[in-house]
């Protein structure tokens, strides 16, 4: 009935148009406005007719279209007559929309009001939001619709909010419209102005203010008319501005906000973060990101100091973390690959139950991805605040307990390791690393110690997850974290010893089997030396290509020796791969990985790597440089005793020329032991235990060490990769530890029945990567560790070679 009447009136209007001159746009606009008012003047509140069955949507749509059309004809950004009527408050259609939204009469009116408001803002280029008669109804509408719990129109509400965020993003000055004191006092915002109530006489649903954190601050009672739209640093002067669009400049200026100020736009968005509807959450996330990415400093300050947005986002992360079920398999955590933006759609998927904890993990990591993305996109001030909050409220207050709990450590560590792997924002990585390794002068950082002791427990799961965590910590290493973890002790070169305090007897024995001589002797016997030939050729190629005289180069000879020290560490008799077919593959990988490290550390304030190579042969130092660590294990098999006892002069090469201008080399006096620090101590301990540890642990352990070996820092380099380094007897080095492991293996493995066969078949199975093999119980751990060590030695040799090669290029 209603509908028919209004149709009829439109027809009458059309009929009138035929007779009279065509109406102007404004007249059209006024006509539709009157039709809306008529409708409400005669509205029966008990009517159940839905708004879509009335003419209201039609009239609103026409009014909107008129504004859109007139804008196209407006020159130079001036406001057309229809919009002008709104700005002048002659036609208060926006206030009417607010009344409709508040009352939701007829049913469906709220949704219509919200979408019409949104459409007005999205379809016009200049919606005059800085005019009081535009922004105040919008504020009112948003606040009155913001119900807790979620209202049925939350989608439309958040859409309007997002639209406003978009406008602020393009016109930063508009942010002020959503901050105190432009947000009027509570009573005024929660009621409909009386003149509008007269025009639209429907009862508002909103009567008593709900508990709403938005209003926990007393708003100032200043009225808008006396406030400039842009707040400046100057003394408050109520008369300089007015609320009208003409006076309001929308350029963002330096403004001052105090802690009691509120940023309504963001605060409102926050209330939608907890919606059950993922689309709504997504919109709120987008809105926050849009506003946070503004380059204006004052807006960034507003976001961090006048809204709890960073806190809310991190709290939500903590809540999601706590929802991860205890019995989630730590190994399931790693394979997740989640982008926050796509999640809302994925959620409907039945595949969300892939495994125990999948849904919760997905939800957690997608939120983490949001934090990370936000941090990359937002203003640096917000990023800094967000990452600090992340550390305090998530890492310290929430995640740390898990790592310390013996029951949950494996899962908690796996989750954290994945977190660190997943994040990309520099601020976040840096806070994360600092939390792990500590800051300031605290030498023994409790959490780091906890992680180290977790690595050394009997619980293999915890060890494994913690090792993987350390691997990630190193990969994502910051200058600070790498320093704390590995460099702080190595920097002093305290591992060097002037007089290796060797017992005479031992020294003789060592010299007897020096690598140099043995190499000559065993050339035919050891097919492994083919590798060396490979390397020799390659180095020769490179050197001659660079125009270096190959034959006379001690540097070149030296790298041969280093490479061979690693390659010949294990006796040929127990090698699983005596041919070493994949050595080139290791060189290739080392190249790639080394490049990664060069890039990763390019901004670090480290001494230059060119010290890796010494292309001069002169021996200018005085201390005894005989290689104390030059044992060769074939001895264990053939008890070789050479008769020539002269020391090897070429071995002195690597301890020369490490004179960094900034740090004089400190050389320990022999009886003073070098303290390698807790991290290296842990690594050495685990390395020594290789023969009795599961394969997976050894794999990750050696992966960590090879990462460290790749790091382009000259001290770390020589400490890890120079087997001929003169050190005190008790000073532990990687090479000594590996020799010890090799010694153990070469004694124990030949005791295995049919050991050559076992080695061969174990290698085959490991290389096949058959998942079933992992589940079988009958592994030979000892042989597996042999194969890991064998491959690890190739890898270290390749790394040493690649770094040498690179240094040569740099030197030229």
């Amino acid at each position, binding site marked *: 009935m209603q509908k028919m009447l209004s149709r009829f009136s439109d027809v009458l209007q059309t009929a009138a148009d035929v007779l009279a001159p065509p109406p102007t746009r404004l007249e059209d606009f006024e006509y539709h406005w009157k039709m809306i008012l008529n409708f409400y003047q005669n509205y029966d509140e008990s009517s159940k007719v839905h708004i879509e069955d009335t003419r209201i949507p039609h009239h609103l749509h026409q009014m909107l*279209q008129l504004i*859109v059309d007139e804008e196209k004809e407006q020159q130079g950004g001036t406001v057309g007559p229809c919009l002008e009527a709104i700005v002048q408050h002659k036609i208060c259609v926006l206030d009417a929309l607010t009344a409709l939204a508040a009352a939701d009469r007829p049913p469906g009116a709220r949704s219509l009001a919200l979408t019409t408001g949104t459409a007005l803002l*999205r*379809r016009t280029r200049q919606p005059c939001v800085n005019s009081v008669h535009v922004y105040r109804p919008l504020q009112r509408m948003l606040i009155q619709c913001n119900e807790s719990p979620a209202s049925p129109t939350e989608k439309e509400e958040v859409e309007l909010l*997002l*639209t406003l*965020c*978009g406008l602020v*993003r*393009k016109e930063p000055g508009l942010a002020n419209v959503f901050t105190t004191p432009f947000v009027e006092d509570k009573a005024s915002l929660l009621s409909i102005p009386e003149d509008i109530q007269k025009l639209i006489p429907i009862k508002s649903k909103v009567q008593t203010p709900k508990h709403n954190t938005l209003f926990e601050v007393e708003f100032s009672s200043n009225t808008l008319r006396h406030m400039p739209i842009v707040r400046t640093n100057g003394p408050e002067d109520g008369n300089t501005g007015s609320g009208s669009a003409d006076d309001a400049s929308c350029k963002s200026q330096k403004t001052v906000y105090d802690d009691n100020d509120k940023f309504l736009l963001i605060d409102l968005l926050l209330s939608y973060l907890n919606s059950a509807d993922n*689309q709504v959450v*997504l*919109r709120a996330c*987008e*809105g926050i*990101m*849009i506003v946070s*990415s503004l380059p204006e400093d004052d807006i960034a300050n507003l976001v961090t100091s006048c809204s709890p947005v960073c806190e809310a986002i991190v709290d939500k992360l903590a809540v999601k973390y706590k929802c991860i079920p205890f019995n989630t398999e730590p190994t399931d955590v790693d*394979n997740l*690959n*989640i*982008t*926050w*933006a*796509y999640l*809302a*759609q994925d959620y409907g998927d*039945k*595949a969300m139950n892939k495994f125990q904890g999948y849904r919760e993990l997905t939800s957690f990591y997608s939120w983490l991805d949001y934090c990370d*993305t936000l941090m990359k*996109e937002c203003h640096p001030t917000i990023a800094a605040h967000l990452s600090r909050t992340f550390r305090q409220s998530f890492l310290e207050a929430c995640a740390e307990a898990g790592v310390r709990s013996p029951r949950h450590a494996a899962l908690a560590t796996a989750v954290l390791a994945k977190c660190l*792997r997943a994040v990309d924002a520099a601020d976040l990585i840096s806070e994360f690393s600092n939390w792990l390794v500590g800051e300031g002068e605290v030498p023994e950082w409790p959490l780091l110690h906890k992680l180290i002791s977790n690595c050394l427990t009997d619980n293999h799961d915890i060890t494994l997850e913690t090792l993987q965590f350390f691997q990630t910590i190193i*990969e994502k290493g910051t200058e600070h974290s790498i320093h704390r973890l590995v460099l702080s002790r190595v920097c002093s070169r305290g591992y060097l010893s002037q007089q290796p305090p060797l017992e005479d007897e031992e020294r003789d024995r060592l010299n007897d089997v020096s690598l140099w001589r043995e190499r000559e002797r065993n050339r035919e016997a050891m097919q492994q030396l083919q590798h060396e030939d490979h390397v020799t050729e390659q180095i020769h190629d490179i050197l001659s290509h660079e125009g270096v005289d190959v034959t006379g180069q001690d540097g070149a000879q030296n790298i041969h020796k280093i490479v061979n020290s690693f390659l010949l560490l294990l006796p040929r008799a127990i090698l699983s791969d005596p041919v070493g077919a*994949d050595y080139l*593959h*290791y060189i290739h*990988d080392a190249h790639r*990985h080394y490049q990664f490290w060069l890039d990763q550390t390019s901004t670090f304030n480290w001494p230059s790597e060119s010290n890796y190579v010494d292309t001069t042969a002169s021996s200018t130092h005085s201390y005894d440089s005989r290689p104390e660590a030059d044992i060769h294990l074939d001895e264990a098999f053939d008890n070789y005793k050479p008769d020539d006892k002269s020391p090897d002069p070429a071995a002195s090469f690597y301890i020369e020329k490490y004179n960094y201008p900034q740090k004089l080399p400190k050389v320990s006096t022999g009886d003073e032991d070098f303290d390698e620090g807790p991290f290296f101590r842990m690594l050495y301990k685990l390395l020594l235990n290789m023969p009795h540890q599961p394969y*997976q642990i050894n*794999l990750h352990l*050696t*992966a960590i060490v*090879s990462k460290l070996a*790749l790091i382009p820092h000259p001290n770390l380099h020589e400490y890890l990769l120079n087997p001929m380094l003169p050190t005190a007897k008790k000073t532990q080095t990687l090479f000594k530890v590996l020799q010890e492991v090799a010694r153990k293996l070469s004694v124990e493995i030949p005791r295995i029945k049919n050991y050559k066969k076992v080695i061969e078949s174990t*290698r085959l199975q*490991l*290389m*096949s*990567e*058959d*998942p079933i*093999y*992992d589940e079988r119980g009958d592994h030979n751990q000892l042989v597996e560790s042999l194969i*890991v060590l*064998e*491959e*690890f030695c*190739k*890898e270290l040799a*390749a790394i040493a070679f690649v770094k040498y090669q690179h240094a040569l290029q740099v030197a030229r």
Partner: protein
Amino acid sequence: MAYAYLFKYIIIGDTGVGKSCLLLQFTDKRFQPVHDLTIGVEFGARMITIDGKQIKLQIWDTAGQEAFRSITRSYYRGAAGALLVYDITRRETFNHLTTWLEDARQHSNSNMVIMLIGNKSDLESRREVKKEEGEAFAREHGLVFMETSAKTAANVEEAFINTAKEIYEKIQEGVFDINNEANGIKIGPQHSAVGGASGAGGAGAGGAAGGGCC
């Protein structure tokens, strides 16, 4: 409805070129004459058939305005295909293609299939960019090219479906790792048993060195 594969697409390009209209035409078969500015990202989905297989397309229509680029970037990661759209009646939208392409290549996975679309082909009289120019740009950058009209629906189906075909072929060739959802491809419920076991990895000694993630 059950599907064999699900592909994730994004639509990118300058503001006003008709991205939202293309999506609406493809999913709802209608045209929207007003420019309803996209802020954030809009979503649409449709089922298509390739090679007798049901394929679900999930499409994210992004905002073209520079101010909202932070959101758009979040969607590059994890998309299998992209429709890069310009407006044949506005040369500047064509001139910006390089920037779009750089942005996409930088933030997306390297296998993402990109289809270049010159939209508004119905406005022949106002054309500013010749078809040959679009073709040349596509050839130079290894893209597939097509001119469409979201208004008349000309070539709209083809644009979306050809992109899907290209992705489908890449899957057959084994270029895409379909088990990695970061590639924007998901295997439908009836297929998921197949891909389950692989990818466990990490068991080979060679992996000790080769498998490092740096």
